[in-house]
């Protein structure tokens, strides 16, 4: 497997930030009550991860080991603030509905985790790709969680999409079932925990099947032991 295929495999399945590393649970659970919010959060996270991974990879040889963490935090905080300002300017409705969780991307451990584990040791392009694919893996989980919760909670998909994508996007809203009384449990954080639990269970159930398709059999590096004993 070449480098990029390996990164893709790690980010989307094997080491998925939302399902395996279980990092960044706070935004994952808090903003996924609708698909639109999930998509907005996903885009913001990808933007921050690509930006921070790229920058950290570029300046990695000037960062002394002892003070790398404060520098990473500073760079990430800078990117989050920029993303927040951009959302405020160009997606005001979504900026309001994501609320405090947009600035809180700073505290999402996936971002500093990838900065420390990957970007600080690798060259620019793979680092950017790693940021993108890890962000994408996270976004896919957000979207899955968002659509399940929105569907079970209020019977729609893409409710409020115009907040993110502009007025034309109201046509994206799909009402699958008409629900008069929304399913409160699913809309609140406990429902998010339960749905996430089911998604992880599903992932684990499919794991061996998917791995046998995508992961080539590992060739053992140890020499085979020669059988010497008589029997």
């Amino acid at each position: 497997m070449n480098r990029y295929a390996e990164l893709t495999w790690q980010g989307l399945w094997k080491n998925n930030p939302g399902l395996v590393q279980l990092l960044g649970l706070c935004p994952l659970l808090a903003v996924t009550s609708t698909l639109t919010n999930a998509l907005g959060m996903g885009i913001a996270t990808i933007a921050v991860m690509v930006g921070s991974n790229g920058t950290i990879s570029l300046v990695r040889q000037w960062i002394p080991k002892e003070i790398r963490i404060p520098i990473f935090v500073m760079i990430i905080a800078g990117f989050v603030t920029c993303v927040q300002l951009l959302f405020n300017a160009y997606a005001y409705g979504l900026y309001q509905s994501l609320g405090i969780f947009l600035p809180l991307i700073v505290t999402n451990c996936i971002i500093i985790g990838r900065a420390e584990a990957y970007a600080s040791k690798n060259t620019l392009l793979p680092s950017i790709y790693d940021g993108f694919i890890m962000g994408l893996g996270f976004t896919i989980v957000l979207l899955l969680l968002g659509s399940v919760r929105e569907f079970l909670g209020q019977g729609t998909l893409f409710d409020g999409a115009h907040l993110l994508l502009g007025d034309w996007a109201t046509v994206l809203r799909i009402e699958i079932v008409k629900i008069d009384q929304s399913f409160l449990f699913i809309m609140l954080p406990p429902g998010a925990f339960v749905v996430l639990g089911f998604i992880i269970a599903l992932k684990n159930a499919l794991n061996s099947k998917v791995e046998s398709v995508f992961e080539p059999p590992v060739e053992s590096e140890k020499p085979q032991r020669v059988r010497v004993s008589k029997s």
Partner: protein
Amino acid sequence: MNKIISKNGLILATFALMVTSIVAVTQYLTKEKIAQQEQKQLLKTLDQVIDRASYDNKLFMHCVPTQSLQFLGSKKTQRAFIAFKGDKPVAVALETTAPNGYNGNINLIVGINFNGIITGVRTLSHQETPGLGDKIELKKSDWIHSFTSHSIQDHKDATWQVKKDGGQFDQFTGATITPRAVVNAVKNSLIYFQLNKKMLTTQTQRCGDK
């Protein structure tokens, strides 16, 4: 030892400077757009509570600071927007707070014309229970329309309560505290308007002025 510390300190300071300047540039570039967005949002809300055809001044510019813990529910300074037709005041949009929601403050904006009749009420922000108390949002229910064209006779008007308490406004199934708080806040803003009608139109101070 000291050398390493000062070297690291310098590196840290350099990074801080760089990151801060990037943020500063972004802030500078988006400043105008953000102000525009906020104004657009404000105008959109004002349009919902006061009919745009009824006035001809720049409504969001004519903003008077108000403050009343008793009638507007908050110690903080809130805003009142005064609509004029020519030089005659026609309506006012009051920002007000219901301090006794089920889960904290409910921020509202109430449009009242100069005959003391409500032209519209909207919820600006709240933390009421989703599915129960959030029917005060227009997105969830049209309950908030039930205030339109109501007025108040005297300060002890008994019709300004939810039906459960003997008034005229519906409560929601499973949530009485939220509508009770909103009804009360709207009633108080009407009283505030009656008491301060004169001050609102003659006040020369503008929001943001010291």
